[in-house]
């Protein structure tokens, strides 16, 4: 399958705080779009602290990295790692032994200009923080996805990032809420989606429930979207469709919770508890 659009779009996935699920979001939304037949490349800009290759399970296939491309040691094409599971997915690896200052926003822009000709979507995995790495990651982006968790510290950092994206004149900034637990929201012990939207005031792109399957997939180096039964898988596929501009309803995951409750109630009754 070939490229579908004339000019590729650059989407940066960012959060401020580390550990909220940026890389997992990049890996799964990109894989999902590639599975739908779009030509997708993921660019790891977390220079010095790379994770994307590991999350995608491509760590043993990396030969060159982004810094070697910039310094002319290899061509861009040579550095791109092709994902065998998704024929339309490619990865441009970060360098592990260098740091964020070894690359400039202009160099990222040049690379993206080249990639836009070949790919429909270019996903940038942004490092945590608001320094040079963040400036590099947003330099060439047309759109931004802000990932957060329903937790005060992640929301505060997300708000700061949204403020900085607005100052950088981003018009398309969307929110992904990762690791939400409906049972805790209901019992009044976790911020709800409505709460997060009230605080952050941007449009919602996706809601990913807390799902143990993500840990299992990460252990194996497989995107969670390959596990059809996982709730997180449905959530990431929905995000991919919404990224394409399609209207997809937000499932509440209530039905599943209710069903689980009935099942556990049944189990408890029959086991005599």
């Amino acid at each position, binding site marked *: 399958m070939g490229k579908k659009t004339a000019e590729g779009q650059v989407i940066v996935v960012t959060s401020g705080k580390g550990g909220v699920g940026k890389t997992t979001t990049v890996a799964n939304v990109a894989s999902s779009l590639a599975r739908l037949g779009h030509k997708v490349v993921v660019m790891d800009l977390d220079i010095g602290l790379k994770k994307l290759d590991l999350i995608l399970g491509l760590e043993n296939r990396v030969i060159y990295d982004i810094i070697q491309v910039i310094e002319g040691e290899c061509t861009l094409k040579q550095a791109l790692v092709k994902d065998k599971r998704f024929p339309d997915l490619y990865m441009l690896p970060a360098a592990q032994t260098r740091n964020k200052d070894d690359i400039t926003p202009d160099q990222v822009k040049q690379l993206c200009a080249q990639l836009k000709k070949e790919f429909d979507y270019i996903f940038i995995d942004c490092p945590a923080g608001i320094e040079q790495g963040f400036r590099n990651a947003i330099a060439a982006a047309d759109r931004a996805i802000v990932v957060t968790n329903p937790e005060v510290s992640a929301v*505060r950092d997300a708000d700061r990032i949204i*403020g900085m994206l607005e100052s950088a004149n981003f018009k398309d900034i969307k929110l992904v809420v990762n690791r939400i637990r409906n049972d805790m*929201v209901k019992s009044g*012990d976790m*911020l709800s989606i409505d709460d997060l939207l*009230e*605080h952050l*005031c941007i449009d919602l792109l996706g809601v990913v429930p807390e799902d143990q399957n993500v840990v299992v997939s990460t252990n194996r180096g497989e995107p969670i979207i390959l596990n059809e039964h996982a709730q997180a898988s449905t959530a990431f596929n929905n995000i991919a469709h919404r990224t394409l501009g399609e209207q997809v309803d937000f499932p509440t995951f209530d039905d599943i919770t209710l069903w689980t409750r009935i099942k556990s109630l049944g189990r408890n009754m029959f086991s005599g508890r």
Partner: protein
Amino acid sequence: MLDFLKRVFNAEDKSSKGQANNRLRLVLTHDRLGTSGLVMDAMKEEIIQVIAKHMEIEGVPEVKIITEGRHAAMDISIPLKGR
């Protein structure tokens, strides 16, 4: 219905979620304006002092930040004593 009852009987949300929301409202407003609770308190005192220098204040003056979306405004309400 349950939510409604909760709201009626428990006007002040004491759940940890409610506390998180209250803390976030305050801290995000301060972050966005580049200020802090301490600065706000000091400013409030100064504003009241300036008014008090020229007019007589009666009752409890209020100086607070109100927000709409990502925008904020300062709401100053100072009751004055008439002659």
